[in-house]
């Protein structure tokens, strides 16, 4: 049995035309114990998808099974079995850290003590502040409390909607380390993120854009499906270089990529591009690189 099966899910908003289409026939499966990433920009449909998967929103078409149960028929059972951390902080700001965690444990008919081993690694970091009101916590601490509350009933599937959005690089790294530990405890985790670089930290990812899944694969699988030569180039005049690359007949696409520009080759490779750039007489540095998820995402978007 799969942990999650999503089959041709459709969702649109608005009572009359023009409808806003959030999900246009989304399908994928998540294995038990997998750390599965849903990667896409704002407005791609990530939150609508998570709300459907957690029984908080009805789809207009298609069906979803979570932990072997139907999200429409068995919504009550599903709610007992999943943990959900929404994108916006949604704990009780005027309850203390400890009270929030107790509250969530109680409504799921359990206690902090019964499941302490599961949340220990995360909760122990905020336990020194257990009498502080949740509203008075720093962003990083709020995130840890929210994750503890989503876990306290030992869910079989954990849904995390953009847990790292707006979070700086250091805290993001820490958060992903926590997720890896949780996965080793056998919990299936679905996590959404707009940060392409986080894809590499998942077992498998679905790349989503404008309500459609563009690809579902392991990060390595997505990279190997890129299928074209990718070259990185830099020079002292990056703006000029970009225009040159765009004008090259062998180049399919060229765009800035951090310190370098990336050139996706239509045909030919390093040698051909090298010869082309030499003609302008300006110094440059050129090397072949492995595409990363962001290169793949852009190539899929432009298809």
């Amino acid at each position, binding site marked *: 049995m799969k942990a999650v099966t999503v089959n041709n899910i459709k969702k649109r908003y608005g009572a009359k035309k023009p409808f806003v289409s959030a999900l246009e026939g989304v399908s994928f499966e998540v294995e038990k114990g997998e750390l599965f990433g849903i990667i896409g920009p704002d407005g791609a449909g990530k939150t609508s998808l998570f709300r459907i998967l957690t029984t908080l929103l009805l789809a207009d078409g298609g069906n979803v099974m979570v932990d072997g149960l139907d999200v429409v028929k068995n919504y009550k059972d599903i709610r007992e079995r999943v943990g959900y951390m929404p994108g916006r902080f949604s704990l009780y700001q005027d309850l203390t850290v400890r009270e929030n965690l107790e509250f969530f444990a109680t409504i799921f008919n359990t206690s902090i003590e019964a499941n302490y081993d599961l949340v220990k690694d995360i909760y122990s970091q905020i336990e020194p502040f257990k009498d502080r009101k949740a509203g008075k916590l720093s962003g*990083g601490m709020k995130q840890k409390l929210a994750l503890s509350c989503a876990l306290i009933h030992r869910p079989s599937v954990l849904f995390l909607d953009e847990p790292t*959005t707006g*979070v*700086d690089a250091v805290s993001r*790294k820490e958060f992903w380390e926590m997720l890896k530990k949780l996965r080793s405890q056998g919990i299936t985790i679905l996590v959404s993120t707009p940060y392409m670089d986080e894809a590499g930290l998942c077992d498998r990812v679905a790349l989503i854009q404008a309500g459609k899944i563009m690809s579902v694969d392991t990060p390595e699988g997505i990279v190997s499906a890129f299928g074209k030569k990718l070259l990185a180039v830099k020079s002292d005049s990056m703006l000029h270089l970009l225009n040159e690359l765009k004008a090259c007949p062998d180049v399919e696409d060229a765009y800035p*990529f*951090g310190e370098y520009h990336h050139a996706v080759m239509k045909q030919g490779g390093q040698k051909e591009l090298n010869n082309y750039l030499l003609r302008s007489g300006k110094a440059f540095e050129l090397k072949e690189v492995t595409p990363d998820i962001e290169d793949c995402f*852009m190539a899929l978007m*432009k298809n």
Partner: protein
Amino acid sequence: MSNDKVIIAEQLTKRFGHFTAVDGISFDVHKGEIFGFLGANGAGKTTAMRMLSGLSMPSSGKASVAGFDVYRETEKIKQSIGYMSQKFSLYEDLTVKENIRFYAGIYGMTDTFIKDKTGFILKHLHMESEADKLVKSLPLGWKQKLAFSVAVFHEPKIVFLDEPTGGVDPVTRREFWSMIYQAAETGITVFVTTHYMDEAEYCNRVSIMVDGRIDALGTPQQLKRTFNVSSMDEVFLKLARKATRAAD
């Protein structure tokens, strides 16, 4: 003092009670420069930006923005700058055209100027057919590009961009940066914060705040050399891991 410098900060400090949010920062930004202002959450970036845009009075230190003093000439500063952020940029329940007219009106632009430039901007953004649509109906990437055009509509000397590309897709993110380059070419100084480290590479110079102080400042190349690493991501992690203060 060089006329080329549009932002000068010397030992700029902001305290809230016993808490020093910004702790004696000093730096200059040149005309037409793209200046990346990085730091972990809670490092003091927002407080520093609020002082530089005339919204918050410093506790001590000196700063001038577009030639105006941050203590005495805050109104003149506000007229000389543009601002956009990820969180707040445009009015969702006004149309594209209404937003432009509203912001331009606030900055005292004339009707003819507004009319001419609105047409130009909509054409440039390929948004002519969206002119009368509500902003809330636009995709995020379009909104952010429109918000940037609105922030520089009155041709400010400096534009402050607070995480302008958060959550934006990778293609639109690059289109947004090409707009930043175009603005800088016309002499507008760009002061930008971001969580995307590849974008730090697109800046002429970058400063990194840690616990209220500027711990590193230089071109991306200089910073990578100084810290002996190959990417801005590693520079950032090396510095930010030293932080002792909790994020907000």
